[in-house]
């Protein structure tokens, strides 16, 4: 199983020399044969400091530096891969502090050829007193925790580009990251991986501490704007996933303030900006007086505003937005569902699903219908282990009913032979 292979680590970086140095030092103490290790640092629009740090380091592995002029992480990663020699590619962000077993854990996790391994990133920040950072940490941790859960069904959104590995052949087959995107490029790559039938795997052993010192609430708003912008481009590339995008699911169900902001963004952007300015002041005040619940509410609204602002950068008015959604939001193509019967035992049913790998399944117990696992766009095809999770979460009530009814009606032949005693209950 342990298959020693040449590994190339690609690290795109942008003006973070200190954390880059920490990462490179961390890689120098890996439990992995150093002659099989190659590190490629892609300095994207960096000043000379980065270059100096890399040059000054004395590391036991092969270290290469590529310099680019601020072309974004997708281009950086692709350039890195272009010069990589290894058969396995590991992508790391520059703000990580790897565990000593990181590389080995990645290599060990590739037990089957067509697999992408996503590593665990415990979140650490020096600004943990900030409310926003604790929320961000919750987001990261809960995301990783759900991925660890038994029977988790992976989606394209689970490809977090901070710490993942895949065989070089797969990367080249898929032509790497989409270079037109500066944000959401990981999701987009994830979509193509899922569509190519690549297996997703989450490894807790391949962990690296995510030392996030840059993020704070005001930066997150800029990021939201980029995300809104990128989501529109993403939708153009994958029209079948437009329905998953947040802005495309805009509806009347939104709260009043959001509806107002939505209108302002697309109709009177000037007033919208003023409104956002006032809102930002209000959010700051809420944090000062420890009004947490309201802070969560209004900070999310503010993020929503900047996200929509990003969308409006691409689609400046409502007509264009409507046309965009109309063009891409086509009705779903019905997928034939496979009938899986549970009355032959769970293992049997799981084996059946594992063999067929269907997109959607009708769950039955005997002749009773339990439920349907609906086709999910951008998710991997079903596996046997997904059944238990779906049954335990969504269909537990239906399953318990089916089991009860089955138990009560099953022994009809037995009862008739019994003497006429009172068996009923009060």
């Amino acid at each position, binding site marked *: 199983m342990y298959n020693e292979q040449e590994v190339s680590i690609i690290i795109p970086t942008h003006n973070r020399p200190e954390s880059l140095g920490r990462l490179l030092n961390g890689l120098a103490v890996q439990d992995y044969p150093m002659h099989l290790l190659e590190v490629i640092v892609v300095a994207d629009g960096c000043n000379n400091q980065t270059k100096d740090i890399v040059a000054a380091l004395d590391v036991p592995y092969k270290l290469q530096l590529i310099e680019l002029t601020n072309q974004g992480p997708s281009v950086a990663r692709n350039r890195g891969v272009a010069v990589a020699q290894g058969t396995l590619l590991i992508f790391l962000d520059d703000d990580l502090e790897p565990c000593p077993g990181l590389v080995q854990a990645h290599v060990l996790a590739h037990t089957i050829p067509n697999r992408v391994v996503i590593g665990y990133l415990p979140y650490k920040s020096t600004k943990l007193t900030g409310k926003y950072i604790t929320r961000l940490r919750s987001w990261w941790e809960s995301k990783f925790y759900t991925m660890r859960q038994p029977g988790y069904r992976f989606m394209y959104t689970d490809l977090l580009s901070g710490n993942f590995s895949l065989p070089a052949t797969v990367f080249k087959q898929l032509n790497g990251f989409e270079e037109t995107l500066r944000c959401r490029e990981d999701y987009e790559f994830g979509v193509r991986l899922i569509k190519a039938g690549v297996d997703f795997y989450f490894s807790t052993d391949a962990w690296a501490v995510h030392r996030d010192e840059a993020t704070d609430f005001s930066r997150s708003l800029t990021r939201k704007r980029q995300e809104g912008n990128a989501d529109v481009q993403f939708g153009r590339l994958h029209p079948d996933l437009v329905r998953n995008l947040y802005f495309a699911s805009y509806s009347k169900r939104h709260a009043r303030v959001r509806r107002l902001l939505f209108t302002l963004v697309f109709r009177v952007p000037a007033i919208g900006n003023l409104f956002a300015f006032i809102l930002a002041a209000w959010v700051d005040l809420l944090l000062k007086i420890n009004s947490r619940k309201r802070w969560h509410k209004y900070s999310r609204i503010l993020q929503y505003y900047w996200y929509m602002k990003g969308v409006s950068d691409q689609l400046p008015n409502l007509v264009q937005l409507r046309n965009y959604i109309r063009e891409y939001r086509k009705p779903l193509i019905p997928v034939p569902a496979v009938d899986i019967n549970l009355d032959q035992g769970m293992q049997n049913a799981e084996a059946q699903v594992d063999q067929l790998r269907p997109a959607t399944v009708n769950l039955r117990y005997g*002749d009773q*219908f339990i439920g349907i696992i609906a086709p999910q766009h951008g998710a991997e095809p079903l596996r046997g282990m997904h059944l238990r999770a779906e049954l335990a979460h969504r269909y537990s009530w*239906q399953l318990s009913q089916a*089991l*009860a009814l089955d138990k009560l009606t099953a022994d*009809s032949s037995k009862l008739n032979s019994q003497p*006429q*005693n009172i068996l009923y*209950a009060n």
Partner: protein
Amino acid sequence: MQTKVLEVELSEGLTAIQVDAAYKSYHILVRYNRLPLGWITIPTAQVNQITKEHLEEVIKNKIGYRLLHQAQRRQFMPVQASVPAAHTSEGISVIVCTRNRTQFLARCLDTLFTLEYPTFEIIVVDNAPSNNDTLELTTGMPVRYVREDRPGLDWARNRGIAEANYSIVAFTDDDACVDKFWLQAIAKTLADPDVTAVTGLVAPAELETRAQHIFEFGYGGMGHGFSYRKLSRKTLSDRQMLRSGSVGIGVNMAFRRAIFQQTGLFDTALDVGTPSCGAGDIEMFFRLLSKGYTFVYDPAMLVWHTHRQHLPELQKQIKDNGRSFGCYLITCFKNKNIKLSSILIFFLLDWIGTWHFRNFLKPRAPLSRKFVLIELAGMLQSPGAYRASQAYACKIAAKTPSEDKQAYIRNEPAAPVPSQQVQEKTNSNA
């Protein structure tokens, strides 16, 4: 409009049901090991059979919790108890009071003959009949015919108690059909020494006419749900007690005969045949409760009742309900078992406030506001009716020899008499 009433037994397995085209929907009582679990209604206008899958689906949606409960019961029943203990099968006297309704009575007696129980007798009390049809019908049947000439259902009931030979008396009406396991259910509940009386589920025998639909679905029918309840003064407030009395239904009730010695017999000023037009049964249950006795509502004790078929009959019945319930409250007050304030609060808040007001504001589907007004009219008549029926009762009582009144409350139950002999005795009497 017609609805077919059916029952399915889960332990016998479910099968598809062929639909009779004459019916628009099916109203099905679901039972498991004879215990009624609940009703399901399936519209059948467009289909010619109810498939097994559909039936299962509806059962799970409607009575899912009860299914689970029964399955858990089976699973967790203590090991030793899985063989049911032999219940003391005390003898039971079944009393059917009738008056000039031979067709109904014949059907009722047919079901009584199919009862599965070791020792019981059937007593038919013919209440002030205007012809000899009932006598002729029962001649040759294994039942005891008793004629009670004083008009009034409670006179007939009291007569039935007097004639009974066994220590448990069970009552049903001539327009009802009993379930095969009716007496078993009664015996099982009364095996508990705390319980003095038991009443049970009343299901509609048929839903053929609009009047029957209105009564069952709009007015609420006669059923009181599918959960076993033990009612006693200890756990109930006064208002709840007044309401609980009305859980008892004359068409499906059973008592220990000895209890009448402590509480007295049915109030002869009440119920059908007197101006009060009803409430003899609920007044009895209330009296039991107020004197500290326990009574049980057991859904396993099942009777199928044929509701009034025609609208005028239904209107009369609902008017009678209003009138008799008023008489019931007045009787409760006169008997001084409960504070006047409780009765007044119950009258204003629960009966008028909740029941009438809610029904009037938002009548349930087939019920129209007319019926609420009719019931209210009945209610307004109740003080007059109460006075009239008191006078009437006194008049009849005056005619009755005094020793006759108490004679039938015996301490010792008489030795069980086999039905055959009873038959001969009645014949010779006639």
